[in-house]
């Protein structure tokens, strides 16, 4: 192991704020430029309105940045918070952290909900939210030591850039005796050369005696982290119990925890078996329903997809408990022991791979035309180690491969590499180039939006076709679901605040398979309720998977099974029992609505947040090319004749493609109208004065912003 030194340059001893009903009511601010460390009380009105987690992150960011702030300006903040319910051992999904920053890809706030112990440990150390601003000259390690009540800054020398080794080294360094007391946040060596950097959040797996990882993947947060010259942020905390949050009603909390965990223990083995296969059960199901992205979202199915689904990974995953939070009964954070990479710096060595999850399998597998489970493991491993987002990497390389196959780019541009679909070695080589800061990988690392501009300007590629097949919206790469046949999910991606990530709304099956929301108004209602409810998890420090991936046995008797109302009731009870703020299920949506609308206004403040930015590449809406149309000709012909009443007799395929496009694009615009109306926004997608007043977010600067955008 390489030698490294950590030179202490700042130490602040503090009196640890006690936790009261899930909150410490204090925030921690670290300015890397001045090396100032401050602890502030959080005002009750901020708590009332923003709840915690993502709500706190956004509030502190809002006050740190101006509308002109770019991702690499020192005032851009990285905020990390759990939430009032975060850190409850045994409650399924009860220990998440939410990270936000201004994204290098989108220029607006990005948020990422991540496992590992960092958020809860930071809270137990005294802080509901951590805000890091500024930029350090030297490489910095920040330590939040709740055991010794000290915040320390260190200048680091000789520490590896490689997240896999770095986290293990720092865990060992800061608590050799009790590594379980440590959680490390770091990025990897590719984050500084790309805009796709992720953060790795760790926990120590006591059974396997090793550091494990979960990623705050989306939007280039790792790139901001690396740019600020942060090597790692480390939280140190000791014992955690059900009393750690000092809940208002301990018995009620214990009761609801028991109910939810008990149900999962009983039903997961009968339902999705996530404790065995994680989210890889989705691979065959998506494939069977023509929703698995294949070859840059061109197709939704492939005969070899079974090679990368649950039936294979069940046997590859290392057996044992895999909760990314203590006692999470879902325990879906699986990994693979003794994997031996066949390329790169770890070639020939045994490593542990944390993952893959569905998104990585689909993004770095089927979407690249590769159906080799071990290749996916290698992509997964190097993305984590190098600090890269597997989703943006998968979707980005898929775009490059289609450009290559279409002849929009050639070997002349790729440094001699054949980047046809299925080329495993060259896909991996792109990652290694991103770490070395060289070659075509550096261009791929800029993300699809910038690639499109470079390919058009420097390589003379056709901008219009790249606009259609480049799967990004707002600058963020799509996550891994095919949306062509689900208008509601097109809305779920196109109108998602941060860009096309499915954590806001996942409506494909309700819409496409079950035709549960036939009208625009039905879809708009779903695109109100689901994003709001899903936002709530991020306010409270929770994982959404236990809500609807394991459901009560009688759930299907409910007229709206997708809402899993029994669990919504449990979440209301859980919130009441910890915070003492009595809420009913109906109160949860308005809580989220305030934060959701505030984030939309934040986009507006940054120069976005209006209708023109809620756009989609046509590949997300319908068939771009003639062969794509031909591959599902019956479906598209039927759509034209039955839904749009078009007489297709004698029409050439190219003409059908064009007519279908006109109709489908118009339909998406109609959906936007319906959704904006339901959300209380203007037809330009801006929250109205009435909406912000109703939600109590009519702060003077919000009203000024609205006025400046013609909303009075």
């Amino acid at each position, binding site marked *: 192991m390489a030698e490294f030194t950590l030179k202490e340059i700042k130490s602040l001893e503090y009196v640890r704020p006690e936790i009261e009903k899930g909150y410490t009511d204090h925030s921690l601010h670290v300015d890397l430029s001045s090396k100032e460390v401050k602890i502030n009380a959080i005002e009750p009105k901020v708590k009332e309105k923003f709840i915690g987690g993502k709500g706190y992150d956004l509030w502190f960011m809002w006050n740190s940045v101006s509308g002109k702030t770019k991702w690499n300006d020192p005032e851009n903040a990285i905020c990390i918070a759990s939430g009032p319910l975060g850190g409850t051992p045994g409650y399924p999904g009860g220990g998440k952290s939410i990270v936000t920053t201004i994204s290098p890809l989108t220029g607006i706030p990005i948020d990422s909900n991540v496992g590992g112990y960092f958020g809860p440990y930071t809270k137990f150390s005294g802080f509901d939210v951590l805000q890091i601003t500024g930029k350090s000259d030297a490489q910095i390690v920040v330590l939040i030591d709740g055991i010794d009540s000290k915040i320390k800054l260190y200048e680091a020398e000789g520490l590896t850039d490689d997240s896999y080794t770095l986290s293990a080294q720092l865990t060992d360094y800061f608590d050799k005796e009790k590594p379980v007391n440590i959680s490390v946040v770091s990025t990897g060596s590719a984050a500084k050369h790309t805009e796709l950097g992720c953060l790795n959040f760790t926990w120590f797996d006591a059974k396997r005696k090793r550091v494990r990882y979960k990623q705050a993947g989306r939007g280039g947060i790792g790139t901001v982290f690396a740019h600020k010259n942060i090597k790692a942020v480390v939280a140190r905390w000791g014992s955690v119990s059900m009393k750690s949050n000092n809940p208002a009603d301990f018995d009620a909390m214990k009761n609801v925890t028991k109910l939810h965990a008990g149900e999962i223990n009983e039903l997961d083995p009968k339902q*999705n078996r996530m404790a065995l296969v994680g989210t890889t059960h989705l691979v065959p*199901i998506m494939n069977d329903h023509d929703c698995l992205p294949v070859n840059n979202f061109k197709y939704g199915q492939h005969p070899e997809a079974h090679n990368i689904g649950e039936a294979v990974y069940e046997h590859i995953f290392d057996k044992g408990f895999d909760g990314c939070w203590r006692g999470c009964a879902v325990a879906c954070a699986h990994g693979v022991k003794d994997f031996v990479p066949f390329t790169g710096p770890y070639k020939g060595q045994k490593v542990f791979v944390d993952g893959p999850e569905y998104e990585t399998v689909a993004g770095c597998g089927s979407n690249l035309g590769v159906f080799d489970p071990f290749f996916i493991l290698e992509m997964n491993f190097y993305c984590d180690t190098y600090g890269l987002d597997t989703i943006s990497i998968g979707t980005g390389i898929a775009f490059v491969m289609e450009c290559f196959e279409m002849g929009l780019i050639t070997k002349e541009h790729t440094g001699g590499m054949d980047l046809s679909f299925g080329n495993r070695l060259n896909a991996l080589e792109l990652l290694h180039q991103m770490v070395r800061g060289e070659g075509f990988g550096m261009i791929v690392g800029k993300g699809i939006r910038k690639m499109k501009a470079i390919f058009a300007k420097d390589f003379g590629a056709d901008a219009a076709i790249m606009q259609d097949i480049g799967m990004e919206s707002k600058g963020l790469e799509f996550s891994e679901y095919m949306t062509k046949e689900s208008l509601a999910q097109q809305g779920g991606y196109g109108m998602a605040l941060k860009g096309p990530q499915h954590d806001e709304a996942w409506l494909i099956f*309700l819409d496409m398979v079950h035709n549960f929301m036939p009208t625009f108004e039905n879809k708009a209602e779903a695109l109100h309720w689901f994003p709001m409810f899903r936002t709530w998890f991020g306010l409270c420090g929770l994982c959404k998977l236990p809500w609807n991936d394991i459901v009560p046995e009688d759930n*299907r008797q409910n007229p709206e099974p997708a809402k899993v109302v029994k669990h919504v009731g449990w979440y209301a009870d859980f919130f009441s029992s910890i915070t003492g703020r009595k809420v009913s299920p109906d109160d949860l949506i308005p809580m989220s609505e305030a934060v959701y609308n505030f984030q939309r206004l934040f986009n507006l403040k940054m120069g976005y947040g209006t209708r023109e930015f809620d756009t989609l590449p046509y590949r997300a809406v319908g068939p771009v090319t003639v062969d794509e149309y031909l591959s599902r000709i019956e479906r598209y012909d039927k759509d034209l004749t039955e839904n749009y009443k078009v007489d297709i007799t004698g029409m050439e395929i190219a003409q059908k493609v064009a007519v279908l496009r006109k109709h489908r694009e118009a339909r998406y615009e109609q959906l936007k109208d319906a959704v904006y109306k339901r959300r209380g926004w203007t037809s330009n997608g801006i929250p109205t004065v009435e909406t912000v007043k109703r939600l109590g977010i009519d702060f003077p600067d919000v009203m000024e912003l609205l006025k400046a955008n013609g909303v009075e």
Partner: protein
Amino acid sequence: MITVDEKKMEWHQGITIRELLDMLENTQFCAAVRLNGKLVSSPSFDTTKIPDNAVIYILPLIAGG
């Protein structure tokens, strides 16, 4: 005899998953079942025949990532 969500049911030669679901209540949101440990998705419900003594679990509404 087959077992569906841990309840015994009569079996007859040639019964498909679709026919089974049609006999049960509130299965309109079923997009996948587990038949003897293997996933079967809705596009194959009409053509997948259930063998005698099969163990079937009706999976909940697919919730995505």
